[in-house]
């Protein structure tokens, strides 16, 4: 690209400026990671580190992951492994470097260029020598630095948000995996009960005590139970694989062990606290929205002040979409005030700012609602799990005891005994699932408070729902 040559005096001034500015643009020591790590550990109690395979930190991380995976995983250990190992998170952390590089870049002038041209024709030769300086870059440098500083800040927030989300998703995956494995074991017991019934029926039919019809019924029960067991076993594999993906586990890491059962319910549920207010303080996605709002406000100020610089046409209008990397950017347009003195531009800037204000407010309203819903799910989950543990399962046990007494008194047959055993197993299984749902609801409540859960939908999505 060619730039217009400038008069010599200007070049000198630009050169002086270049020297001054060049001194203020440099890389930070930690690349923003410390800030991310602090935000993350404030929320999930675990820090994040960026390392690369092969470097010393990478070896440490690998060793730590290996050590954690060697014993039955706790939910915290699973989260730790995910934070160390998950490639998507590492990609997100790596983007911090990109943002910082952009910031540093924004503080540096484009290198001056030297032009040389020789034109000859009609027996004449015209040789022109020029030194080219990026004047627009120079003029917009403070703006760009300001914007890039905010983008860097945003990237840190986004990385922390990714880490907190990953932690929540990993915890949920852990509860699902453990519960699914438990369910599969119970499905195995159900099948055993059904098989015992079918085998007994077959022997009864063999000696002439049971019709083909009744025998077929018992066999059908058993066959159905086998199908259910296959489904349950696959569900256990799928849930475990989901956890493995969250932890970024591959190769020998996939041989991790899980405990036999879910953690017990806490003795009492959390007391209802000022969770909404806490969420307003804590949620990283709301902070991000506020950061964007501030940036828009600042850009609006610029537009108002000059009328010639428009930084709003791009840039902060983008918002992150769940599931894809955050993409944003900006463009600064410097116009010459020949025909348009900027009135329309200022009006547009104001409208964009207001849209931003509403978006941030909407995000806060939705976040509050999410917290209230998550709280309800948490309390209901706790009460239901306790109800299963203290009411339903003991009642089912009582039913089994009474059924056995009736079997003893020759009041019911062994088939009723087996049917009851199956239904009791089903009841215990339902209790496991209620317990799992509680722990997932607990995780989601944390996520709703800290912003590691579902993203607050943007206004358009919100309206279309």
């Amino acid at each position, binding site marked *: 690209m060619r730039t217009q040559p400038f008069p010599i005096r200007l070049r000198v001034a630009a050169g002086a400026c270049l020297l001054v500015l060049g001194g203020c643009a440099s890389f930070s020591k930690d690349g923003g990671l410390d800030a991310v790590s602090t935000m993350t550990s404030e929320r999930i109690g675990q820090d994040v580190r960026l390392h690369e395979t092969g470097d010393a930190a990478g070896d440490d991380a690998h060793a730590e992951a290996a050590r954690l995976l060697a014993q039955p995983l706790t939910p915290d250990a699973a989260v730790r492994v995910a934070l160390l190992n998950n490639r998507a998170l590492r990609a997100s952390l790596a983007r911090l470097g990109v943002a910082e590089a952009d910031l540093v870049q924004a503080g540096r002038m484009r290198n001056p260029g030297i032009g040389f041209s020789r034109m000859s024709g009609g027996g004449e030769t015209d040789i022109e020598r020029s030194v080219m300086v990026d004047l627009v870059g120079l003029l917009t440098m403070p703006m760009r630095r300001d914007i890039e500083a905010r983008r860097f800040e945003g990237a840190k927030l986004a990385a922390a948000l990714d880490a907190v989300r990953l932690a929540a998703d990993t915890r949920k995956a852990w509860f699902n995996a453990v519960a699914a494995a438990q369910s599969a074991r119970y499905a195995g017991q159900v099948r055993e*009960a059904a098989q015992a019934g079918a085998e007994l029926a077959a022997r009864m039919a063999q*000696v002439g005590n049971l019709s083909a019809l*009744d025998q077929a019924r018992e066999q059908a029960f058993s066959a159905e139970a086998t199908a259910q067991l296959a489904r349950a076993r696959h569900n256990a594999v799928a849930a475990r694989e989901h956890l493995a993906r969250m932890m970024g586990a591959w190769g020998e890491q996939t041989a991790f062990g899980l405990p036999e059962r879910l953690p017990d319910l806490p003795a009492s549920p959390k007391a209802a606290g000022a969770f909404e207010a806490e969420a307003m303080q804590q949620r990283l996605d709301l902070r991000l929205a506020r950061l964007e709002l501030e940036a828009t406000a600042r850009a609006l100020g610029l537009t108002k002040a000059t009328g010639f610089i428009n930084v709003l046409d791009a840039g902060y209008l983008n918002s992150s979409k769940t599931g894809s990397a955050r993409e944003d950017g900006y463009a600064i347009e410097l116009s010459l005030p020949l025909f348009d003195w900027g009135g329309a531009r200022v009006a547009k800037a104001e409208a964009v700012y207001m849209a931003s204000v509403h978006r941030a407010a909407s995000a806060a309203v939705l976040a509050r609602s999410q917290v209230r819903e998550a709280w309800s799910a948490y309390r209901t989950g706790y009460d239901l799990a306790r109800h299963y543990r203290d009411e339903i399962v003991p009642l089912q046990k009582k039913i089994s005891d009474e059924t056995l007494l*009736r079997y003893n008194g020759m009041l019911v047959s062994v088939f009723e*005994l087996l049917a009851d055993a199956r239904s009791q197993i089903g009841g215990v299984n339902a209790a496991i699932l209620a317990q799992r749902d509680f722990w997932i609801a607990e995780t989601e409540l944390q996520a709703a408070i800290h912003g590691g859960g579902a993203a607050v939908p943007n206004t358009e999505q919100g309206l279309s729902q």
Partner: protein
Amino acid sequence: MSSRRDFFSGAAALVGAGLVSRAGAATLPEAPIMGSAATQPPPAPPNGRPYNPVVTLNGWSLPWRMKDGVKEFHLIAEPVVREIAPGMKANLWGYNGQSPGPTIEVVEGDRVRIFVTNRLPEHTSIHWHGQRLPNGMDGITGLTQPGIQPGKTFVYEFVARRPGTFMYHPHADEMVQMAMGMMGFWVTHPKNPALHAVDRDFVFLLNAYDIEPGSYTPKVNEMTDFNLWTFNSRAFPGIDTMNVRQGDRVRIRAGNLTMTNHPIHLHGHEFEVTGTDGGWTRPESRWPEVTTDIAVGQMRAIEFIADAPGDWPFHCHKSHHTMNAMGHKVPTLIGVDQRGVAEKIAKLVPDYMVMGDKGGSMGGMDMPIPENTLPMMGGQGPFGDIEMGGMFTLLKVRKDQKPGDYRDPGWYRHPPGTVAWEWTGEPPAAVRSNGPGAAATPDRKPVEVEVTVRKPTGHQGHH
């Protein structure tokens, strides 16, 4: 102007109201309450015409008051707790503390006045099954009288005309009230006590209940699948034995208020049916029996000389009726090898035990069963388990049982050599005789029995 009809209904209302309010306490005879389910030895009649009293199996006879030559009884219809057998009690409805109610004993020609107080939560009435009486005393709610409302007392009055064996029971919501145990026995003795007099005269009702194992109150809507078959609302081993002196002439009278017939069978003796619903049978019409079927709503009197000492079963011959609560849909496991399967089941049901593969006899197994539930079969005899329940008791004939003594003399002591014994000798060799006559019994050849099944084909029947 009042019509005849108004006069009668007004009078009836007056009687009822007068008894329960102002002069009630003074005019109502006492209503004795029985707390025990044991057989009460019969007292001789304190007044009125003499008679030979009956013995109500696991029951009692209702005392009366003589007033101006009228025998006054007072029955109270009320909820009761009846012990069906030790280990099981039932919430029933009955009379004067028990179900069935007390036996009413009167003499042919007696004028009888029965006060009936209703302490049930719904109206009731009493029908005097088999009696000759004025139509308005027949006790049919809606037809011959209004129902006796809770808290009210009605009076029935008639002359006991025909001697014989009778019953009483409600004819108001009778499906429920009889399912709940409302019934009682009635005996009208002949004027001449010497007429067909016996040494011992036992009476009881046949009744049936459907009480879910582990519960206490009968299911009142059952019609066929009862699980408790009882004599006077008692099930074996809770039924008292009938204890008699050797040589006694014994009469047993039973009335059937269940919904099925009962072939009642006595061991060791033959008897004759001497009385039916219609009265005493003529001697020339009697024939000897060891079993007599008592149909629904019927009464039978049987008589015999108890000449064979011992402990003789007396029971319904429907084998399910000599069982207590049992599962009628339990499949047959006889001959089923449960090895392997049993271990599998025991893993799921830790206290599981194999049963039924050798038959129904539980051979002394003493396993916990639901509360308030009688074992399917129970009772211990001198030689082990008496594998019976329900409508089963014993006739105990003893040489030294004193007249009027109804106490249980204990187990029979068999004279030496009169009890079946185990043969312990060597099994005999199967030797074939070569003597004369051997030709007449040729060596048996195994006969092959070929079972052929003719399968239908499409062309059969077209030839």
